[in-house]
């Protein structure tokens, strides 16, 4: 897995000004994505994964402030680019986004093909016929019949609309495509086809993919490397096999327990008691503190550091050294009894 | 666990507290509320506050007939051409205006809200019938209507109120019906049906509390509109014959022919109308923010 670095993010923080004070939606996130790789970001609601992506694409709302030590894309330092330059050079052309519920963001009064053509022409100086040709190519890549270009969005099913959005995101041949919950809300069979198609096009296109979802199974099947987010921070990141074979962070262990598998019907499902933190102020303790059955005094004193325990496997937990013991205890239901 | 251990707050206190917070939460609305309270106090204590009889021909301290006097220490708002004290008139007119406004506004919102709720909830034929009825009334022009009514039945207070109510309730009905329809489709209404609530219970116990902010908003509007409508009617001579209202004062001014001369005569009642209506609108804005959360500051 020693590919070239495509994207390197260091110490990214996003703060929101709200009536209740300053919330740190994302804190000190550091990760990288190689070329030709699928990087999965797993996490539940409120963990900051969508905010992280919007920060990367500079699509944050006005009351948000982003700061980062460095965001390097293909060697170029993005933090030095102005908003205008970013929109012109990077957005869509080199990094594109398939946002959440993308299938609902197609304009209902224009034909689907025209919308993709418009998106292409907005960024590249090509003629309409050249753009149309490209759209035909793209539809082919995502598995849509080219004559569907003249249809309106309401004539497409949910799955087809999602594929149209994926096609749009590939239009300018970006090096990096970010997909935010690409199959959430779609039926199982439709989801299966889209995921399969994404896997198939990896060889056709040379883009890397950042895949964001709360569905652990989808992430397991699609990703080469996975980061687990909680409370605005990356709690653990590792190659997919390593993460599932030897998970170290208590939250990862909890997620594994809570996620049912159709192949293991005898599994005892164990949930994590409590609810996600409010993220007010800079993290002064571990965000998972209140729900963690393994916390010790150190955890409440300061935010744990990110430790590399194996090549490419990082954990943010003071008890990372005791991982095998934690794994054993985590599989017992008693360990997770409500911590009130 | 025995229920006596549950935290007990009197329901009334809770509700009043909530409304106080809504009104005071907004600076404009708080100011408006103060003025409304001021007018209310004047209206309630009017007979004791007015220094003179409003229909008494007055003489000033030097014994001269006090006709068309501009504001002075003796007559704070001046006098009419017949020597009537405008200050006293204003105070007593406040009572009339507020009374008509409150009653008309109150009745019209009651009618409008109920029609809106029932039409919106039941839909189908009921909705069609009620809305046709409302549409018919939309077509009714106010002025000719009140002229006919008053001409037929005389300048009685009841008919003035009736005319106003019949015209004003329409808008609130439409608006509340629209919101009822959207609330009706929310899952908690289906849940209420599943628990066994009757239709009436759902309308008044489940939907009404959610429509309340909008309802109060339109209640304030209705009172404001009633006041303006009454003032217009009185100004045209179709107000109640017995008592004086702000609009009536303007009517008297117009009748006297002294409009160009006596600036003080029209300033006071006009200002009062504007002030009261504006205050009502400001207070209603506070409710609008509750009814439409998008208006709230994040």
């Amino acid at each position, binding site marked *: 897995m020693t590919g070239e670095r495509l994207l390197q993010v260091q110490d990214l923080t996003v703060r929101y000004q709200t009536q209740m004070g300053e919330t740190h939606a994302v804190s000190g996130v550091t990760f990288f994505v190689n070329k030709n790789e699928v990087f999965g970001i797993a996490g*539940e*609601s409120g963990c900051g994964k969508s905010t992280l992506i919007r920060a990367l694409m500079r699509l944050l709302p006005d009351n948000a402030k982003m700061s980062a030590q460095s965001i390097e894309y293909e060697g170029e330092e993005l933090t030095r680019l102005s908003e205008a330059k970013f929109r012109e050079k990077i957005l869509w052309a080199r990094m594109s986004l398939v946002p959440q519920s993308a299938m609902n963001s197609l304009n209902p009064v224009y034909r689907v093909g025209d919308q993709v053509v418009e998106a292409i022409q907005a960024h590249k100086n090509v003629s309409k016929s050249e753009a149309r040709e490209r759209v035909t190519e793209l539809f082919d890549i995502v598995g849509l019949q080219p004559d569907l270009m003249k249809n309106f969005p309401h004539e497409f*099913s949910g*799955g087809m609309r999602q594929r149209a959005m994926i096609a749009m995101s590939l239009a300018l041949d970006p090096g990096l495509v970010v997909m935010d919950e690409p199959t959430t809300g779609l*039926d*199982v*069979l*439709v*989801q*299966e086809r889209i*995921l*399969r198609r994404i896997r198939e096009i990896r060889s056709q296109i040379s883009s890397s993919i950042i895949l964001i979802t*709360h*569905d*652990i*199974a989808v992430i*397991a*099947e699609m990703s080469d490397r996975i980061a687990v987010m909680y409370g605005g921070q990356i709690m653990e990141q590792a190659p*997919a*096999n390593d*993460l*599932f074979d030897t998970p170290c962070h208590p939250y990862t262990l*909890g*997620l*594994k*327990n*809570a*996620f*049912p*598998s*159709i*192949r293991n*019907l005898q599994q005892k*499902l*164990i*949930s*994590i008691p409590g*609810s*996600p933190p409010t993220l007010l102020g800079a993290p002064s303790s571990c965000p998972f503190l209140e729900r963690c059955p393994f916390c010790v005094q150190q955890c409440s004193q300061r935010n744990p550091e990110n430790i590399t325990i194996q090549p490419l496997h990082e954990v943010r937990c003071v008890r990372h050294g005791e991982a095998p013991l934690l794994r054993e205890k985590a599989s017992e239901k008693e360990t997770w009894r*409500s911590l009130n | *666990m025995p*229920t006596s251990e*549950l*935290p007990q*707050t009197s329901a009334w206190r809770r509700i009043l507290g909530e409304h106080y917070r809504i009104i005071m939460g907004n600076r404009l609305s708080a100011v408006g509320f103060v003025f409304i309270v001021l007018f209310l106090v004047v209206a309630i204590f009017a007979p004791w506050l007015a220094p003179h009889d409003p229909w008494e021909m007055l003489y000033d301290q030097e014994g001269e007939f006090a006709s068309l006097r501009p504001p002075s220490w003796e007559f704070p708002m001046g006098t009419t051409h017949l020597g009537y004290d405008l200050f006293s008139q204003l105070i007593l007119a406040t009572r009339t205006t507020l009374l008509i406004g409150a009653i008309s506004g109150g009745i019209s919102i009651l009618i409008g809200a109920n029609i809106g709720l029932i039409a919106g909830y039941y839909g189908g034929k009921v909705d069609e019938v009620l809305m046709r009825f409302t549409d018919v009334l939309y077509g009714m022009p106010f002025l000719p209507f009140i002229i006919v009514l008053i001409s037929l039945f005389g300048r009685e207070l009841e008919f003035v109120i009736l005319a106003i109510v019949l015209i004003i309730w329409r808008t609130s009905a439409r608006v509340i019906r629209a919101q009822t329809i959207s609330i009706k489709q*929310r*899952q*908690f209404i*289906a*849940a*209420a*049906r*599943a*628990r*066994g*609530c009757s239709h009436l219970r759902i309308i008044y116990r*489940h939907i009404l*509390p*959610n429509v*309340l902010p909008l309802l109060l908003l339109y209640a304030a509007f209705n009172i404001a509109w009633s006041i303006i409508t009454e003032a217009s009617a009185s100004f045209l001579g179709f107000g109640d014959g017995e008592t004086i209202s702000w609009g009536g004062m303007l009517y008297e001014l117009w009748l006297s022919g002294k409009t160009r001369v006596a600036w003080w005569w029209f300033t006071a009642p006009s200002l009062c109308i504007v002030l009261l209506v504006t205050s009502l609108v400001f207070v209603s804005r506070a409710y609008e923010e509750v009814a439409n959360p998008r208006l709230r500051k994040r």
Partner: protein
Amino acid sequence: MALLELNNVTKHFEVRQGVLQKLQRQPVSLIKAVQSVNLTLGENEVLGIAGESGCGKSTTCLMIAGMLQPSAGEIHFSGKRVDQLLASEQAWYRRQVQMIFQDPYESLNPRFRVLETVAEGPRALKLWPEKEILERSVDMLSSVGLPPAKYAERYPHELSGGERQRVGIASALVMEPRMVVADEPLSMLDVSIRAGILDLLKDLASKRHFSCVYVSHDLSILGHIADRLMIMYLGQAVEMGPTWEVIRNPQHPYTRALINAVPVPDPRVIRPVPTIRGEVSRPINPPPGCRFAPRCPHATTVCQQAFLQLQPDENKPHQTACVRLEELSQTNQLAEASP
């Protein structure tokens, strides 16, 4: 005798016609949401109904809960016919069957405090004197894991999704129903708290002796809660049987495809490629026969003419609505790798 029995239950909706169509006197299009479904539910049993969107599972569960009337067929509860109840009898049925809804953010009245929400059902039906209603509601809050001192006076917007769903469960169970219909109660909750709510439901079901019809598209969850499973496609029941049987040994081509399509939280697993084609359509004026035929790799003309109606049978618990089943299994054509 089964607690709940559906016999040949069908539900059609009429598609609203535009003025032009009315003038042209075109026949009204019908959405045949549910077609001739038979099912039974025993005491203390959890029946899972699974399928993708448009399969009719939500419509079926609304009919079972008495919120929707079938177009044809009969529903019997505890031996009594309940699909055409008079208004006066509906109150009785409400006590027998209660519903748990999908969206915790929408299924609670935002103006009601938690205790008021829980007490609303008994108050509406005047089940007990007020004092007793309050006591039972307070008890119910404890039973669902929400300490009353902390939660009784709160508003929904002060609660998390999981807490709200617990309130929903409490307000259904305070009525002491014998049967609970749950419409995807977990799908809008975070993964890490789903297991807790699931446990709660299982726990309360065994303690308070109610049966449950659990509707979901998530086969993984159904595998963990349902005793028996029924798979629906476009309004028809295609397979039913004991849950583990159906999941481990699916017979119907649709069920096989469905189970093979469920992603597995294990990066090393490679799933077989499903061989069905096309997309799910809306059940508007569908052709007679098996509705899966257009997409089925094994379909023949026989399949398009009539469909097999599943009939619950104690002696044959695992049933499949495929006319070619025996033929295909004999020639081993159904050998898609099973999970």
